[in-house]
Structure formats: C-alpha cells, structure tokens
C-alpha cells in the first residue's frame, strides 16, 4: 500500500546511503564505554549473599508456623499417628492450612505497613512477593509431595490419585485466601485472612468425610477442580502483580 509519505521516506533512504558514519568516533564511543565500565564500582553483594541477608533479617513469624505445619503434615502420615481411614480428612485440612499459610506469608507484608518503604528499595514489593511466593510454594509443595508418597504407600493407592486429593484443597484454599487478600479489608486485617483460611480448611474437612467423593467416577470432578483452581490462581497472581505495578495497593493510606 502506497503511503502518503513515500516521497519523504525516499529522501531519508537517499540520505542514509550518503551519510558516512565516522568510524573513528564510533571507536571512541566504544572506548569511552569500556573506560566507564572499568570505573564502575560494584557495591552490591553476590546474589547468594543478598538472598542470605534477606532470609536472615526478614520477618519470620509466619514462616515458623508454616514450617511447623509442613513438618506436622509429613509426620502425621509417617508415624502412623492417625487411623489411615481418617487420613483423608486430616490431610485435606493440613493441605488447606498450608495453602492459607502460603498466602499469609505475602499478606504479612501488608499488615506491617512497610510496603511503601519496601517499594522504594532495589528489591521492591513485586520482587519480594515473587520471592516469598516461591519459597513458601516450594516448602508447601515439598511437604505435600512427601505426604503423598508416604500416604500412597500406606494406602496402597495410586500416587497420582492421592496427589490430586491433596493438591485440590491446597489450591482452592490459596485461591480463597488470595481473593480475600486482594480486598482492602483483607490486607489491613490479619484476622479476616486467617478466618478465610480456617473456613476453607473446615469446608474441606466436611467434604472429605463423604465417601462418594473417592469413587472413580468422581475423579473427573477432582481433576476439573484442580485445573480450574490452578487457572484461577494464575489469573489472580497476574492481577495482583498488575495492581502492584499501579502502586496504590502499596501506599499506607
């Protein structure tokens, strides 16, 4: 399609052919860049030093609860503490609790009111959120995986099915808690978030006591719930990062 300014474009192209780039000046530019590079000091530590510093000094109140819950869940299965038939119920409650605690780790940043200050640092709230979600996710998933392995051995059940029964409460509780955290009230009030977590875990404990839920025919719904839950979670996180980017969420008032 011939554009209105093709003649002007032709003028530019003709000039581009005729304009000679001064290679001496180009070399000079390269040289000055190298000189500048050599003079630039690096006061930042290595990546590992910085992560270490962050882990050492950050607020670990929720992390302690989280670690305790993870260990509790794994020990529950390993030590044969509970009747294996009741294990379904206990595992779903634990899984829900882990989901709530994962979100609480991120939420705790907002309760302190420090987000405005953190947003002005090199590692800002967006990166801090990603960091916290990553390590709390790894912790939770490791605990869930170990529990799945032990339980599937003891119950002599297919490991995938056991995994699905454990993951679905985790993912759905995370979605519920994240939805609460995305509201103004949820971010200002710790109790609201905790209540949401307890409600979700309680819901799953009721659901877990229904034997029909474990029939092979119900598996389709479990898988659908897992996929839907993961999809919703991904969308929520995407939205969360978008509003973090806008910035109002981070401000104190």
């Amino acid at each position, binding site marked *: 399609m011939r554009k*209105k*300014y093709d*003649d*002007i*474009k032709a*003028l*530019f192209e*003709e*000039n*581009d052919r*005729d*304009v*000679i*780039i*001064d290679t001496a*000046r*180009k070399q*000079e*530019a*390269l040289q*000055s*860049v*190298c000189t*500048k*590079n*050599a003079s*630039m000091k*690096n006061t*930042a530590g290595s*990546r590992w030093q*910085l992560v270490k510093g962050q882990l050492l000094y950050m607020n670990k109140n929720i992390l302690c609860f989280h670690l305790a819950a993870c260990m509790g869940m794994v020990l529950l299965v390993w030590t044969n503490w509970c009747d294996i038939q009741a294990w379904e119920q206990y595992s779903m409650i634990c899984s829900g609790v882990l989901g709530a605690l994962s979100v609480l780790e991120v939420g705790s940043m907002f309760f302190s009111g420090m987000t405005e200050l953190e947003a002005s640092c090199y590692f800002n709230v967006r990166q801090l959120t990603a960091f916290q979600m990553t390590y709390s996710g790894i912790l939770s998933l490791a605990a869930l995986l170990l529990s799945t392995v032990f339980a599937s051995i003891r119950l002599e059940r297919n490991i995938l099915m056991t995994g699905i029964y454990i993951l679905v409460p985790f993912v759905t509780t995370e979605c519920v808690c994240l939805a609460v955290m995305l509201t103004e009230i949820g971010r200002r009030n710790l109790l609201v978030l905790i209540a949401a977590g307890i409600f979700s875990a309680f819901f799953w404990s009721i659901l877990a006591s229904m034997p029909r839920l474990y029939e092979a025919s119900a598996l389709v719904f479990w898988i659908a719930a897992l996929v839907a839950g993961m999809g919703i979670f991904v969308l929520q996180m995407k939205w969360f990062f978008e509003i973090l980017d806008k910035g109002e969420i981070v401000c104190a008032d």
Partner: protein
Amino acid sequence: MIHQKNRQDCVQSAVEMYYEDVYRFCRYYTGNSTDSCDITQEVFLRYMKYMDSCGHKNLKAYLMMIARNLCCDYFRRQSEQREKLLSFDMLEDTAEGGCLGTVRTIDNCDSELYLQELLQSISQEQREVVILRIHDGLKFHEIAKITGCRLSTVKSRFRLGIASIKKKIGGNYA
C-alpha cells in the same frame, strides 16, 4: 547485579548493532553531525551506567528513548545559551533565517541540506515524530511511549509535520 564483563559485552554488542540508527536519528533531529556524535556516545554511556540486566525487551526503542531525551536536553541548553547571549546583546549569534539557530556543520551535500532544511522548518515536537515514524519505522504507540505524550497528540503532530513538509516539497515544484 551485573558482572563487569557481562556489562561490557552487552554494551559492545549494542554499539555494534545500533550505533548507526541512533546517530542518524540524532543527526536528523539536531541537524548537527558533530554534536550528534557526542550525543550518540552519551546514549551508550547511559545505557551502560543504568544497565541492570542485559537484554531489554526492545533495546532499540530504549536507546531511541534515551537519544530523544538527550537531544531535547541539547536543545534546552542551546536555547539557554542563546538567551544568555541575547541578554548580552550578542545578536549576531541568534536565529538565522527560519531555522532554530543551531550551528550547522553539515557535509556539503545538496540532498542532505534539502532534507535538513525540511526537517528544521517544522517544530521540534513534529520533527521527532516524523523521524521516528518514517525513518525508524516505529509504531505510533511506541512513539507515544518514547515522547511521553498521548497517542492522539503523537498522531496529530505527525499529520501536521507531514503536511508542512509536503507543502514545502510541493512549493518547490510550483
């Protein structure tokens, strides 16, 4: 958080790839080849100084953004200098017939002089949009991002700039 060696490699490859593009943009924008070399060098120094992670999504647009801002700063310093000279009544250094009064040392090439005259005859804001759109082939929303203006403002500046240039071109054939 970037290692010195990595940083140097990144900037060197950026210079290899985009030096000409940045230089040409500055030359068309300012109308001055010597100053354009200086500005182009500054663009890459800035890139180096603030490079935190190698690989911007659109490196060319980023470099053009810096180039455009540096050129605007160049114009600002020029006009401040001109005001100072005016206040000392050194009028002979001020605007020469129509253009912005920038000291021109363009190679004595007819078509280039012609294009530069056309470009310098339109306003600074229109000129940058015309160059970025026609010469560099950037989309309007990319230009809006570089100049920090609304999309509608960018489009209208382009339209007016083109119309003005075409009028002058048309006038020559009259």
